[in-house]
């Protein structure tokens, strides 16, 4: 891509993106093309990151481990739903992902959690998302029982209109009361640990933030799997 085109692209993306400055956008564009590889742009062929490449980034850079959530994050980025993340989707997506306001993040997270996109997070969806959240099952109980209970607890906490499912209004209200519930059904935003690292190295290079995450430590140390091992 020639300089002029890059310049133009940077300018237009910067204009549409409130959380990154021009320099940052430029870096992100460069990074994007590095990740995509040296594909010459031709008419009719979409240049973009496919699902697996993107999941790899999510895993390596932001420490995400949950396949399903990563899939949902991909969908969140892939606005036109064509299976590829283009450069503008990339920059826009990252601006919410990294720097989004609470409102933006709530919308984004709700979309991630609303698996079927019907505007509600249903009990089934919750169950689906939480089914791996209990590591140690009490042997004598039905393993699903604990998850069902957890779903009930979540509903009691978040379902303000008591209709048995979470609307965006329910979710928004709950999150405003307690920000910790933003990622209630799974981590779909960068881990705060990584964010902290980024904050320290921010002035040097925007993409220094994208360093591989150190392994899980503490409680869930055995939880991390490479996403590439599992096909979607």
């Amino acid at each position, binding site marked *: 891509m020639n300089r002029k085109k890059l310049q133009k692209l940077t300018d237009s993306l910067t204009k549409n993106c409130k959380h990154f400055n021009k320099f940052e956008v430029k870096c992100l564009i460069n990074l994007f093309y590095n990740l995509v590889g040296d594909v010459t742009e031709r008419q009719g062929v979409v240049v973009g990151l496919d699902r697996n490449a993107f999941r790899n980034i999510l895993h390596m850079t932001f420490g995400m481990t949950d396949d399903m959530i990563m899939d949902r994050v991909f969908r969140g980025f892939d606005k036109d739903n064509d299976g590829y993340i283009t450069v503008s989707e990339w920059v826009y997506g990252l601006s919410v992902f990294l720097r989004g306001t609470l409102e933006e993040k709530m919308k984004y997270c709700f979309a991630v959690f609303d698996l079927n996109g019907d505007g509600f997070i249903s009990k089934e969806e919750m169950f689906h998302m*939480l089914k791996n959240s209990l590591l140690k099952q009490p042997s004598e109980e039905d393993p699903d029982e604990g998850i069902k209970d957890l779903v009930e607890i979540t509903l009691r*906490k978040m379902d303000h209109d008591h209709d048995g499912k979470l609307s965006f209004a329910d979710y928004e209200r709950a999150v405003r009361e307690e920000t*910790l519930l933003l990622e209630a059904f799974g981590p779909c935003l960068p881990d705060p640990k990584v964010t902290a690292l980024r904050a320290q190295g921010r002035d040097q290079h925007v993409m220094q933030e994208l360093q591989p995450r150190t392994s899980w430590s503490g409680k869930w140390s055995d939880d991390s799997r490479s996403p590439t091992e599992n096909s979607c």
Partner: protein
Amino acid sequence: MFPYYEFSNGCRAPPWRQIQGEICYVLVKPHDAETLCITCSKEGVFLNGGKTDDEEEINYERKGEIYKDLVTLLREKSAKFSENMSQQEGRFNEEQQKEKDQPNEAPEEEAAALRKASTASRRSALEKKQISLGRSQMTKRLEPSLNWKTTVDAEENKSSLRDTQEEKHGGRLEKSRPSASPGRAQLLRKSAEKIEEIISESSSESEEDEEPPDHLQEANADLPSEYWQIQKLVKYLKGGNQTATVIALCSMKDFNLAQETCQLAIRDVGGLEVLINLLETDEVKCKIGSLKILKEISHNPQIRRNIVDLGGLPVMVNILDSPHKSLKCLAAETIANVAKFRRAWRAVRRHGGITKLVALLDCRQPSAEPAQPGLHEARDGEVARCGALALWSCSKSCANKEAIRRAGGIPLLARLLKTSREDMLIPVVATLQECASEENYRAAIKAERIIENLVKNLSSENKQLQEHCAMAICQCAEDEETRDLVRLRGGLRPLASLLSNTDNKERLAAVTGAVWKCSISKENVTKFREYKAIEALVGLLTDQPEEVLVNAVGALGECCQEPEGRVTVRKRGGLQPLVDLLVGTNRALLVNVTKAVGACAVEPESMMIIDHLDGVRLLWSLLKNPHPDVKASAAWALCPCIQNAKDAGEMVRSFVGGLELVVNLLKSDNKEVLASVCAAITNIAKDQENLAVITDHGVVPLLSKLANTNNDKLRRHLAEAISRCCMWGRNRVAFGKHKAVAPLVRNLKSNDTSVHRATAQALYQLSEDADNCVTMHEKGAVKVLLTSSVVQSQLCQCGLGRNLSDVKVLLKGVFEHTKLPTCCITAGCK
């Protein structure tokens, strides 16, 4: 004994078994039978299903009868044990008898024994095999039932205990009040402290201000539904991943965590361990959630202690280093709640917490945070505020005060003091106020120009802030320069005007305290008079709590040192309430009241009123007060009363037994009391008849005995009293006989000129008797006088001090000289 964690209630059974009343499990291998797996429960002891294949688990089902205690069970199961036990029986009965004789000791021992159960039972399991069992240990363990009885007693008393605790924590006044049934409560507290010593490893700092930990929870009580819900949530905390944990934490936060049931439920199902454990992971969201809960439940004194026991403080101290501001804030706030007792203060200090907390105060750090603050982030100011909150809690310990100072906390606090945020100012000022009890803090406070800002905040709208500012000024105003600073910065006017606002008693106490300390400087009294503070103070003499009264009366005592102040107090009718306060019991108050009454009595007109109100008699009866400082203060106050009363001699005689009382006070061993009583005797002895009476009561030998002192204040007043008492009968001779002369001569070596003057006067009186003159000469009075102070040169010139008759002349000369600086010695010489 199973390697179960020992819960803070002393039980080792897992929580879901505790509900059944089970306490712990013991494995016993008797000499002649299989290993027995025994459950100890509230009902008694019984065999359970034994160990399961899974090493760590046991089958909890009851497999046999319930026995009343372990010994009965073992006797039933093992013949050998039974046999050996019967041999021990005789001695055992004795022991029991002894225990019955001391019923109060028993529960303590048993509670202690129960807590020692882990080692004790393991050991005794071994020992029982050899039947060389530690008998004393056995006897204690024989009667678990008794322990339960005491627990029930404790339950009954708990409410009253808790009330007093709440008073302590709710109100700021840390004085414990006598409880309704002091004996019983004390007993309980005592036993609780005993236990305390056992759980917390022996500590150098005493723990007297801690609350007694509660014993086993009443297992039979109906558990509220919250208990089960919380238990379930804790299960998710234990076995959930980050997502489930966060949900469980958020859900737990919805319980009413201010309610004791919920607080204790979290603890009793093992939630505290998990919450603290979460703090050690590196999951920011879990830490935040956990701290949010800990912050709330740590308002409960028992939970605080449990958190410290579980090692929660070092973990929280580490979090203070976190790059996440909201985490720092929460950790600091939780520390602020937990660090309310010595062991916690020490833990914070030992793990470097003070330095880290002080670092939080520095909010000028180069800001490296993103332009858009993160979701979980807080403002810098908030961090500093939370840091100050934690320091406030920690600053109640002297060692921590020093640590704060060394960590450079004072300049940072001084800088924070410049903000106008009230929520920030309150902890900052409160920390300074706590620390100002230390001398080097007061110096630093002066140096950092903190007084200026304290004065400024006195005019704040916030009552709590005003209160802390006034308290801080009160502490700092011990220092004269600071008192002047307060005046120069215009702090006296707001203080005076706050006196008229009597709704908030805590603040009023702080303000009157500041007025009192400030009024020690004369210039400040002048200002206070200008601002009509004395009138306001007089108005505070009735219907106020003791804390206010002490300070207000103290302030009046200082103001009445000036004639204008005395007139104001008299005209405002302050004498009546002051005299009324003389019948109180509060020691600090009595000291201040006597001082104020004494100050007023200097004015003859006021004295008439005091006499009329029978104030002198009340003062006199305070000489019987058990506290030496009250006695001394009362005796000092009596001096101006006797001086200024009309017909003082008659008045003094009218107090039946009064003179004898005064003379007997000379047997006290408190220097201040002695000095004050000597001063009173000086005044009493002005009346010949009274002098005769006190002579009869043996004042001469008592005074003579005191002459060997090295306290200048006492020396001076003693000498004055002696010279007065010489005026009667053969007292001069008597003083000589009781060997008062020689020490008096020695007192001339003192550096205090007022001592010289008084002593010379006394020696002059004594020298009327020839024998005394001989003693003086022998003891080298002449020489001493020659070398002493100002007179030396003149005396040499006059060539005095060579023969006996010169001594009198010399003494007279010295006396005259010190009274009138112009040289009269030459006159005496001629």
